C-alpha cells in the first residue's frame, strides 16, 4: 500500500507541476485521429505488458492497493469539484489561487487527466491478468471491470471529438449553421427546415393577488388552485372556488363573452364562482389570461384582492422538422423533449424556443451533438449494467479456495 500511496502522490505532484507550467489540458488537442491512435497504442501496450504479468511490479500495478489508491484519489479530486464552483469556459483574467492550479475546472486539469489515465491502465492490466486465467464463474468480474474500462475509454477519448451546437431555426425556413460551444457560427453537414413549432400547455392555476402591489397571496408562500378537468372545486385562502366553465383556447369576443377559437393568440379563460367562507359573499365572473391584443381579465373580490390566472406551463413543445443529413435520406421528424433524433454520429434535440413569445414563438432552438464514440459509451454502460445485476444476484460470493473473498 505504501508503494501505491507514493505512486499516486507522484502522479498528483507531476500533474500540479504540469498545470502550473502548461496551464489547463484542452482535450480537444487530441481529436481524431490522434485519440484513435493513442487509444490503439494504449491497448497494444496493455497487451504487451501483460506478457509480464507474473512480474512483481505488474502484480502491484494490477493489484488492489493501487486500485484503492487511484479510486480514492479520483474521489478526492471529485470532492473538490463538488465543493468549488466549476466554470465551463475559462476566464483568462481570473488569477486567484484556485484558478491557477486548475481547481475551478478540474476535469481539464493535468492531475485529473493523469489520474484518469493511470486508472485506465491499472484497470486494463487487472482485466488482462484475469483474462489469461479465464473462468466462466468470474462473469460478474468481467462484466463490471470490462464495462467500466470500455466506458472510461470511450468517454475519455471521445471527449476530444464531442461537439455541441445550438441552432436557431425559424418557421418556414431552412438552416445549416449553428453556434458551437465557443459561440462561433459553424456550417454543419446537414440542413434542417422547420415547418411548425407548437407548445401544448397545461391549464393555468388561479391565484389571489393584491390589487395594489400585484403580489400573489399569501406573500411568503402563494396558494394556488390548479384548474383541472377532473376537479372543478377548490379553495383559495378563505374563498371557495368553483369552475363553472373553462375554455383552454379562448378569445374575448366582447365584454364578458369568451369563445373557443383555435388561434395563435387564444389563451385560457375560466368562468368562476367564488364564495367567501366567512361572509358568504359571492363573486362570479370570467378570468382570462390575456394575449398580445387583449388584456387579461381578473375576478375582483374586493378593494384589496382579485383572482387572476398564472402563466400556463408547457406540457409539451414540439418541432415539426424536415432533417437532411448529408449522405443520408431526408427525414420528417417530430422532435420533442426526451425524444431526440439520431442519425449516425449526430443527435438532434428539442432545446428551447422564444420564451417571451411562448406559443407564438416563431423559432425553435435545437441542440445538435456530435459524438462518434457514443456507441462505445453505450457498450460500456450496458456491460456495467449487466455487471450490476450480477452484483444484485450474487452479492459477495466467497471464493472456494482460502478465505480471500472474490467479488465481481
Amino acid at each position, binding site marked *: *500500500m505504501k508503494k501505491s500511496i507514493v505512486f499516486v502522490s507522484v502522479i498528483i505532484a507531476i500533474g500540479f507541476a504540469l498545470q502550473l507550467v502548461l496551464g489547463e489540458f484542452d482535450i480537444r488537442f487530441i481529436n481524431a485521429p490522434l485519440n484513435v491512435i493513442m487509444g490503439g497504442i494504449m491497448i497494444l501496450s496493455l497487451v504487451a505488458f501483460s506478457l509480464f504479468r507474473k512480474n512483481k511490479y505488474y502484480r502491484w500495478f494490477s493489484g*488492489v*492497493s493501487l*486500485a*484503492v489508491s487511484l*479510486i*480514492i484519489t*479520483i*474521489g478526492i479530486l*471529485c*470532492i473538490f*469539484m*463538488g*465543493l*468549488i*464552483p*466549476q466554470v465551463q469556459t475559462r476566464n483568462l483574467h481570473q488569477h486567484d489561487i484556485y484558478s491557477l492550479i486548475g481547481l475551478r475546472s478540474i*476535469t481539464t486539469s493535468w492531475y485529473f487527466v493523469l489520474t484518469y489515465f493511470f486508472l485506465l491502465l491499472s484497470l486494463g492490466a487487472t482485466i488482462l491478468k484475469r483474462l489469461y486465467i479465464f473462468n466462466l464463474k468470474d462473469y460478474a468480474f468481467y462484466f463490471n471491470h470490462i464495462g467500466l474500462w470500455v466506458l472510461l475509454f470511450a*468517454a475519455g477519448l471521445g471527449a476530444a471529438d*464531442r461537439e*455541441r451546437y445550438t441552432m436557431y431555426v425559424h418557421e418556414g425556413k431552412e438552416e445549416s449553421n449553428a453556434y458551437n460551444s465557443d459561440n462561433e457560427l459553424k456550417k454543419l453537414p446537414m440542413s434542417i427546415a422547420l415547418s411548425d413549432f407548437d407548445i401544448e400547455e*397545461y391549464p393555468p392555476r388561479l391565484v389571489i393577488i393584491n390589487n395594489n402591489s400585484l403580489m400573489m397571496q399569501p406573500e411568503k408562500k402563494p396558494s394556488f388552485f*390548479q384548474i*383541472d378537468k*377532473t*376537479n372543478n372545486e*377548490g379553495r383559495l385562502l378563505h374563498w371557495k372556488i368553483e369552475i363553472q366553465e373553462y375554455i383552454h383556447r379562448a378569445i374575448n369576443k366582447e365584454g364578458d363573452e369568451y369563445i373557443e377559437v383555435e388561434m395563435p393568440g387564444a389563451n385560457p379563460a375560466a368562468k368562476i364562482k367564488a364564495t367567501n367562507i366567512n361572509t358568504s359573499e359571492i363573486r362570479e365572473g370570467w378570468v382570462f389570461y390575456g394575449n398580445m391584443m387583449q388584456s387579461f381579465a381578473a375576478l375582483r373580490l374586493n378593494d384589496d384582492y382579485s383572482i387572476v390566472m398564472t402563466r400556463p*406551463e*408547457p*406540457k*409539451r*413543445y414540439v418541432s415539426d422538422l424536415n432533417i437532411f443529413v448529408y449522405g443520408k435520406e431526408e427525414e420528417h421528424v417530430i422532435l*420533442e*423533449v*426526451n*425524444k*431526440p433524433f439520431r442519425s449516425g454520429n449526430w*443527435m438532434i*434535440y428539442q*432545446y428551447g424556443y422564444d420564451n417571451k413569445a411562448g406559443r407564438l414563438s416563431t423559432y425553435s432552438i435545437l*441542440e445538435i*451533438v456530435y459524438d462518434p464514440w457514443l456507441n462505445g*459509451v453505450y457498450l460500456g*454502460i450496458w456491460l*456495467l*449494467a449487466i*455487471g*450490476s*445485476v*450480477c*452484483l*444484485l*444476484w*450474487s*452479492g*459477495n460470493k466467497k471464493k472456494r479456495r482460502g*478465505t480471500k*473473498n*472474490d*467479488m465481481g
Partner: protein
Amino acid sequence: MTWDEFLWFAIPAMVCWITAGIIVYKRTNPVIINGLMISGILLFAIFIAGLWIGQQRPPLRTIGETRLWYSLFLATIGFLTYKHWKYKWLLSFTGLIACVFTCVNIFKPEIHSTTLMPALQSIWFVPHVTVYILSYAMLGAATIASIVQLKKMNRGKVDPELYRFMDNIVCVGFGFLMLGMLMGAAWAKEAWGNYWSWDPKETWAFITCAAYLVYLHLRLQNSYKKFTLWMLPIAFIILMITWIGVNYLPSAQGSIHVY
C-alpha cells in the same frame, strides 16, 4: 377508472403489505407472505392499468401518478430482493415506504395535478428514482451494521456473520446504486444532450460510488480493518450529500438537478 376509485385499491393493498411486513417476523407459512405481497402488488398494477385506460394516456404526467409507480416498484423489487436474500427487514421496510407514498396520495389529493415539466416526462424517471431509494435503504442498513461492528472491534471481538451481512448488503446496494447512475446517464443523453456533464449531483453520485467501491475492494484484503469499516459511515455521509446536501451547497445552485 379514475382517481375516485383509488381508495378501493390502496387500502386493501396497504393492509396486505403491512400485514406481510409484520408476520414475516413470526413463523409464518411463506405461501401466506407471498400471497399477501403479490395481492397488494396486483391491486396496484390493476389500478394503474385502469387509470391508463380511463385517462387514455400513460399515468406518468403528474407527481401523484409517479407516486403510484414508486409504490408499485418498491413493493415489487423489495419483495423480490427479500425472496432472494431472505432479509426480513427489507420486506417490512420497502412495504412501509410503498405505503408512505400511497398515503401521501390519499391525504394530499390536491397535488395530484401538479404537473411534471416536459424534461421529467420520461420512462426513465420512475426506475431511476426507485433503484436509488432501494440502494439508499440498503446502504443505510450497512452503515448501521458497520457502526455496530466498529464497537465490537473496539471491544476486541468482531462478528464474522455481521461482516458477511455487510459485504452482501453493500454489494446489492451498490448494484442498485450503479444501475441508478447508469440509468441517469442514459436518460441524460436522451434529455440533455450528454450522458455526463459533471453537474454537482452527478459529481457527488460518482463520489458516492467511488467510496463504496473502495470499501468493496478493501474487503478483498485483510489489512486496514478499521479503515475499511470506517469507509461505510464516510461513504454514507457522502451519500447524504448527494441526496439532500446538493440542494444546499453554494457550488450547486446552478445545477439542473436542484428543484
